[in-house]
């Protein structure tokens, strides 16, 4: 069904429309209940809508779960081999598919045929799509598609007339966008151990190894992942790692090592509901505090969280640049909802950053030279100079020390960078503001998209404020909201983002709209909740 969904999205894309596709699947390989929701518009669209114009169910369980999600002018398709006489249009999926050897693979083809018919795509055009997208057993696929098409034609033909949009756009998942953004920003090596919802970064990059000359490694565990990345950075490679909460927890010791050695390493942390194994294939924003605090000892970190697939692209490159500029670890925080949802995007690569550190020029070298801004120029082996990075507290050359003056001095040296990171961030876009007037809504990450879509749907006038950077927290941009009553919206039981706003910017939430059932907000439901509090 996931394949059918991406074919369906492609059909809309061909017509110049924008698409948001959310895949909901359980943590299992076969069976269970999986579904995808595709929403499309001729404007920017930021969320899927659970209320649907067309619902296609290939089994009884789906029908029972989704029947009440139908819009009042919508149409629902059910499998008439499993249910008789239900509301909607019955299609004999099983009995027809049984005639073909690859029967289980045909339901997706059937779904594509139904969609095609309902938006007035001719049978010829449908056959072209099937040939392109389902080349295995292509004859069977076409026969089946044509049968379904003819079967639903009388009731469904061109039921939903859709306009063409302005232009054809690429569609990416959040994780693809992070991966491509990192490549555009100078990535050389990636280390990852599979963990949903971060795995597809590893998979995307692994598939691009040869083309971009990358080294992509899946080692024994996440502890190896982060330590290998630090080793790579020592040798001059732009390194990135990725995981979800549990895997990143294993990286916490190495994250602290990056803090001490001043290793530029970018970590992608894609959140799923926790604690522990939690709910692997669903979404939440429960690891914000973890990202802000992970790692023992005191050291600087940069944490940023993109709101959309497009922003993820630029931010991935920008974060790579920042960790190299300031030689401290960074976290690109995101959620399953962004990582694994697909969106049409307009990306201008010229606007991406390219990781550019401060290099040692000539003369004697001290790895931890105490400079005015705390940034010690980098040099990589092989070199006539000796380059020592050290996990123990160390002197400027990188030799271990227990001397009290040196301990103080090196703490100060590392911490000096904080001011310079902030000065640098002040020149960047650290907060997105959408709209003006109306109540103030604070949110972050992909929840921002749910809010944007909810405001559109509910025709609500409000201003959305989304901090992109979470550490250092862009208080300089938020000063003006200090005494305003605000609404906060996040996917967290405890309201971690709401607390952060209070703690760092003294912004007090009068209403927290939160959700923690593993599902992102639906714009209609969210619009209602927002209206209740304004």
């Amino acid at each position: 069904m996931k394949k059918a969904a991406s074919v369906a999205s492609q059909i809309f894309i061909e017509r110049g429309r924008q698409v948001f596709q959310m895949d909901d699947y359980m943590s299992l390989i076969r069976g269970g209940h999986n579904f995808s929701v595709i929403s499309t518009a001729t404007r920017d669209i930021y969320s899927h809508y659970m209320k649907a114009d067309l619902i296609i169910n290939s089994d009884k369980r789906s029908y029972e779960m989704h029947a009440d999600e139908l819009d009042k002018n919508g149409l629902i398709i059910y499998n008439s081999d499993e249910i008789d006489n239900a509301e909607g249009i019955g299609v004999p999926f099983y009995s027809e598919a049984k005639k073909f050897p690859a029967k289980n693979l045909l339901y997706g083809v059937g779904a594509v045929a139904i969609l095609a018919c309902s938006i007035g795509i001719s049978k010829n055009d449908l056959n072209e799509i099937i040939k392109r997208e389902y080349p295995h057993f292509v004859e069977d696929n076409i026969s089946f598609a044509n049968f379904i098409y003819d079967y639903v034609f009388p009731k469904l033909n061109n039921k939903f007339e859709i306009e063409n949009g302005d232009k054809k756009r690429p569609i990416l998942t959040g994780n693809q966008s992070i991966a491509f953004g990192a490549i555009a920003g100078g990535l050389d090596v990636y280390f990852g151990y599979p963990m949903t919802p971060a795995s597809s970064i590893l998979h995307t990059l692994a598939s691009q190894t040869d083309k971009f000359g990358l080294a992509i490694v899946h080692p024994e565990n996440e502890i190896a992942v982060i330590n290998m990345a630090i080793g790579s950075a020592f040798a001059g490679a732009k390194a990135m790692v990725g995981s979800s909460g549990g895997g990143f927890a294993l990286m916490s010791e190495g994250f602290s090592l990056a803090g001490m050695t001043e290793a530029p390493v970018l970590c992608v942390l894609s959140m799923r509901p926790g604690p522990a194994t939690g709910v692997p294939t669903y979404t939440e924003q429960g690891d914000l505090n973890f990202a802000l605090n992970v790692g023992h000892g005191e050291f600087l970190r940069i944490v940023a969280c993109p709101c959309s697939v497009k922003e993820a692209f630029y931010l991935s490159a920008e974060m790579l640049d920042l960790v190299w500029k300031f030689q401290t670890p960074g976290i690109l925080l995101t959620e399953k909802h962004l990582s694994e949802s697909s969106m049409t995007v307009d990306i201008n690569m010229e606007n991406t950053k390219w990781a550019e550190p401060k290099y040692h020029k000539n003369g004697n070298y001290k790895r931890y030279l105490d400079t005015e801004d705390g940034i010690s120029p980098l040099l990589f082996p092989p070199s006539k100079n000796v380059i020592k990075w050290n996990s123990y507290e160390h002197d400027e050359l990188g030799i271990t020390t227990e001397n009290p003056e040196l301990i103080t001095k090196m703490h100060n040296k590392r911490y000096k960078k904080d001011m310079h990171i902030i000065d640098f961030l002040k020149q960047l876009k650290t907060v997105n503001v959408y709209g003006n007037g109306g109540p103030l809504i604070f949110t972050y990450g992909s929840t921002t998209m749910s809010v944007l879509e909810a405001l559109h749907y509910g025709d609500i006038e409000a201003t959305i404020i989304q901090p992109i950077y979470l550490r250092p927290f862009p208080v300089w941009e938020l000063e003006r909201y200090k005494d305003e009553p605000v609404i906060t919206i996040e996917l967290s039981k405890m309201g971690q983002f709401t607390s952060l706003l209070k703690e760092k910017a003294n912004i007090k939430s009068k209403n927290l709209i939160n959700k923690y059932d593993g599902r992102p907000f639906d714009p209609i439901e969210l619009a209602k909740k927002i209206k209740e509090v304004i």
Partner: protein
Amino acid sequence: MNTLDTYAENTWCPGCGNFGILNAFKKAIVKLEEKGINREYIVISAGIGCHAKIFDYLNISGLYSLHGRDIATIQGMKIANPELNVITFSGDGNAMGEGLAHTIFAAKRNFDMTLILHNNGVYALTTGQYTPLSEKGWKGPSTPKGSVEEPLNALAIMLEAGATFIARGFPGKQAHLTDIMVKAIEHKGFSFIEILQPTVAYNDTWQFYRENTEILEKEPKSFDEAMKNVKRKDKLPIGIFYRIKKPTFHEELYGNWNPVRNRISREKRFQLLKQYLT
């Protein structure tokens, strides 16, 4: 030529076996340079423990890592730039306890690196607790009645895991140890040297090793013969037990590529990304 020494104050106990390891290694570096392996291309790492202090005493580039993680650290270095020769100094607690998974996997993937195991049979820096290689009955502060576990045999595990160069040395036999180090570093693939390291503070084995080690007369010819030798208990053979040629991890991963030297330009990346972004 730079000296191989640093200004760091040496804090090993007088008489510690680590001095012999340091000296043999410095001699090995000189020998390697005679053979054309320049020290600029040698990078080191170390775990955490008495053994690891060697990092501060050697004027060679590297990254002083975490307890057990040095084995992962140096693999990262080599993956980034395969022209580097990577060597790590590990303790028996370090490589066979905290970092065991990394050690086994480095052998399994025949990673082109050298792991020098300072086997002193204790967690020395944390005051003498039993390690995965301590004999059953070892009385340390965490096992006052004696450890109840049987020891691992590090070399047997490494052989089984896929190491392509396996040796044992003793700091009391300097020239022999130096020679093993040179050969291990020259070897393309995963080289593992177990060094029988007396710790005068906790496990003074100088006398025992002098009496019980025996230089291997000739290098075993097969895996089975190597296995038999590493398991010998009557005498402790020292020397090279096993050495075979096999493709290494980075060669299998990306052939002759070098991720940092051959980095693809920004412009070229943009051009290639167009396919996905337009």
